[in-house]
């Protein structure tokens, strides 16, 4: 009888110990990360994000991405936000301003609390996404790509690169807050620099038509941040090539497509930089405590072909520090 009891207890203990041992070797669940992008051209940010996380030591098994691409459809993005929120990911990375604003609105409505990292947007504080750069508070943090504040600097860079410019046409989007803020910054800088500017609202169909009609020699084009303007890049390139007009974009891909130059943080580097926030949050930090960062680097890119084809005089000092690209020869560059 004693032996039976002994075996009963021994078996119980042994099975418990074996279960305990199996529990010990059970792998950790991968982290669910949702990614929101308004259009295909921001995919570079996602590529940067993936590379950044990999460099920080996250393997593909540890992270599971749910990517929502709205294909530049403002209606679709809302749907995709709902879908993503239903999946309740551990963290959401937004790849631009519009995505972040829509997501915040939705989360506020639904009172959902999921940490959000914005992988580069202009003027988050001014858009009401954060309270303060140093201590954002709330659920949002990420990279201020500085594209609103840097707008004046870009005007200075454009006018310094081509000293002969008299007037600069500024393409903005009146329906995008960041774009409007950028226009304000541009106005201030223009005033300080003594440069005349002509704003052009890209949200209206007449903008490009107007530019086709009005742009003249000695004039240049400055592109301000807006996903709508980003999607118009090809048309703007066509205009500048036709009119032999120097133009300054934000992203390297704009220069690659044919604008004379671009000055701003690249999509890839913004995504890469955003991976740090993702890592910090996954390691237990609250998004509200992580200071919003500026871009690690600003790229000044000049398209060699465009430069040569415009037939204008350039500031050689600036040209000396510019990153010259040869898209036709190189077949496009990622950075």
């Amino acid at each position, binding site marked *: 009888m004693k032996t039976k009891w002994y075996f009963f207890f*021994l078996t119980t203990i042994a099975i418990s110990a074996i279960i305990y041992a199996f529990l*010990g070797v059970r792998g950790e669940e991968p982290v669910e990360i949702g990614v929101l992008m308004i259009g295909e051209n921001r995919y570079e940010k996602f590529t940067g994000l993936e590379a950044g996380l990999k460099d920080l030591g996250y393997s593909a098994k540890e992270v599971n991405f749910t990517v929502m691409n709205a294909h530049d459809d403002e209606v679709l993005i809302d749907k995709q936000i709902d879908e993503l929120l239903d999946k309740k990911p551990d963290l959401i990375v937004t790849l631009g301003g519009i995505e972040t604003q829509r997501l915040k609105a939705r989360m506020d409505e639904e009172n959902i609390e999921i940490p959000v990292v914005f992988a580069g947007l202009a003027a988050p504080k001014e858009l009401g996404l954060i309270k303060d750069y*140093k201590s954002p508070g709330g659920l949002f943090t990420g990279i201020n790509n500085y594209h609103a504040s840097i707008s004046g600097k870009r005007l200075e860079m454009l006018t310094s690169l081509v000293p002969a410019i008299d007037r600069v046409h500024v393409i903005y989007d009146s329906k995008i807050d960041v774009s409007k803020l950028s226009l304000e910054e541009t106005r201030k800088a223009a005033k300080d620099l003594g440069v005349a500017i002509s704003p052009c609202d890209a949200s209206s169909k007449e903008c490009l038509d107007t530019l086709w009609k009005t742009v003249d020699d000695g004039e240049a084009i400055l592109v301000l941040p807006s996903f709508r303007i980003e999607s118009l890049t090809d048309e703007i390139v066509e205009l500048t090539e036709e009119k032999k007009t120097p133009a300054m974009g934000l992203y390297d891909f704009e220069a690659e497509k044919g604008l004379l130059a671009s000055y701003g943080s690249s999509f890839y580097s913004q995504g890469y930089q955003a991976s740090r926030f993702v890592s910090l949050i996954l390691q237990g*930090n609250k998004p509200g405590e992580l200071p919003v960062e500026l871009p690690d680097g600003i790229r000044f890119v000049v398209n060699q072909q465009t430069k040569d084809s415009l037939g204008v005089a350039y500031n050689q000092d600036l040209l000396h520090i510019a990153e010259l690209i040869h898209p036709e020869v190189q077949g496009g560059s990622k950075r």
Partner: protein
Amino acid sequence: MRALIDFLHSQTIRNKVLVFGVVMSTIPLLLISLFYYSFVKSDLETRILEKQHLVLENLSREIQYEFSQTFQRIHVLASLNLLNEKQSALYELLQQSESVEEVIIVDDKGFVEKRVSRYELNIAGDNERWFTDEMWFQLQTHDRVYGQVEFNQYGQPVMKLAIPFYEGESKKAIGVVVQLQKIIGKISSMRQDHSSYIYLIDDKDRVIAHQDYSKLWQKQTSGGQDELGVTAEIEDLNWVLVMEQPKTTAFAPINRMLQSGIGAVALLILTVSLISVWAGLYFTRPIVSIDREMNNLKQGRKISPVRMKRTDELGKLADSFNDMSKELLEKSRLLEQEKERLDVVVNGIGAGLALVTKEYRITWMNPILKGWLKEDRLTLPCYAVIGGENAPCLNCPITCPDLDKIADEVMKFKDGANGERIFRHRVFPLNHAIEEEGEFLVVLEDITEQKQMEETMIQTDKLSALGIMASSFAHEVNNPLATINVYAEDLIDRIQAGDEDLDEEEMEHYLRKIKENTERCKRITGNLLNFSRKNDWTEDQIRVKEIIENSVSLVEHQLKKQRIQLELHVDRGLPAVIGDGLKLMQVIVNLINNAVDAMESEGKLIVSASESNGEAVSIKVTDSGHGIPAEAMDKLFDPFFTTKPIGKGTGLGLSVCYGIIQQFGGNITIDSKPSEGTTVEIQLPAERTLKAGQGVENQAGKSEITDGHGNSAQETMEVGYDVSNKIVSR
């Protein structure tokens, strides 16, 4: 521990085999696991620290390199001496160093002369002062100046670096704002294995980079004992990089290994336990069966044979047990029968039995002895209980180690419950006795009736002898009386006749004769009286010669009457013997009477006494009678056995003689040859302290007995022997 060992000792073999199996399988495993655990743990700790050291070294070099590169570039910029002419040199610095936000040149008064910024417009403010007072002060003496970590308008951590340079005679300075977020971000967000974390402490002990942002800008908290960590100092900046990892997570892999190990050990214990139990059952089942049957056997219950189909040692043991138990049962049954018999004997023997230890303590006695003894004295030593003595008996074999000779010779007397009773007390040593349970067996026999019977027989025998001798006595007395009468009548006649010859001398002769014959009568009657007296055994030193003479005097007439020639030979210096003289006389009278009866008329009777080997006195009575038939020899000492015609003998004579000689401690031997005669020899222990011969006149070595008339008592009669029979008694 002791209690545990005792507990284990008290367990069954099956449990012991189980415990042994489990212990022998788990303890080595646990010891090896423990050794490897501690070895791997210490190895892991070393590796973690090495890895941390490596990571920190790389990081600190990177940071150091970043700052030294920046300084180097500023130095190059200063040495170009083209700062006033071209802005491109400043732009180039921005291009070369991604972390530099802006470059400024200040004049000798500290006002910004020129600016190139990555984010801001390159417009210098009026009388704008870029340096803090502290930095400006340091610039006067140092060739490299580090500012404090501060925040720009976007909350980004930045740091100012500056070097002085000379442009002509004036001492100017180049300053740069370095963006720290990339360094800090890299340090903070770098994914470390197993919860490791890195943080950076500036020269004011503030945490300027930490994975946990809630700890930023706080004073450094030193790592606790629960963390493994290393530090690396960044020279010039006086920053310290720290990498730490909680021990709980550092050792998580080996803890997981341990966790898995526990499962494996548990599984192993379970398996080994099962095997151990199987082995335990296999090996111990026969033993358990044998043990069970042995208990049944011990408690007298019915047992069944242990059956198993195996031929190993255990199988043989079971077979042996079956055989042994069968034999044991048989022997037990025989033993019980023996015991029953013994009980009957012990209780029905009529003798008292007791077991006595060397200390005279009685450990057991049979009911008969208990009945004889007083209950309240049973705890006393045996000599007090049985003999009523205060000291052990003189010849007790317990006291005397020379046990074999005297074991059954000891006689004792004891006060019986109903008056005086006589017991025979013998002690036997037990060769296989259990110590302290009695090494001696005491046998007590109540011989009171036997003794009384013996006394009666002696007396009867004596009376019988007296009857036989009655006419002899009368005749013997009659002769002197007739002589007295003759002398008296003759004297009276002569006095009355007035015989003048009757003088005094002659009268004295007459009176002396009368006196002599009177004394002779007195002696005869005295002997008769003495012989016929009933007396108890009295011990005294007795002179054998005197006893023989007294005895012969009693039968003298009979011998004469039957014309039997008597020869009497008594050695000179014969030692005395200890005993009852009257009893010895009765023996000799009996023997002479038997001799006389055997001869009937005419014959020769020799009575002799001599010393035998200096230790005994030998008395021989030899007749020339018809001897004793061979078939009667065995029964001679039996009571009431006689070969004499009816009315002539009682059959008690020799039996009484035997009893009396026994009491003397001597022995009696009869040697007889039919038709030739019989010799009866009595040997009595001699008393060496007194020589009876001292009072016996002996000139020629042999005394001669003479009759009352002065004739020689030695008479010669014809003798004849042919067949010899012999019996010896103790």
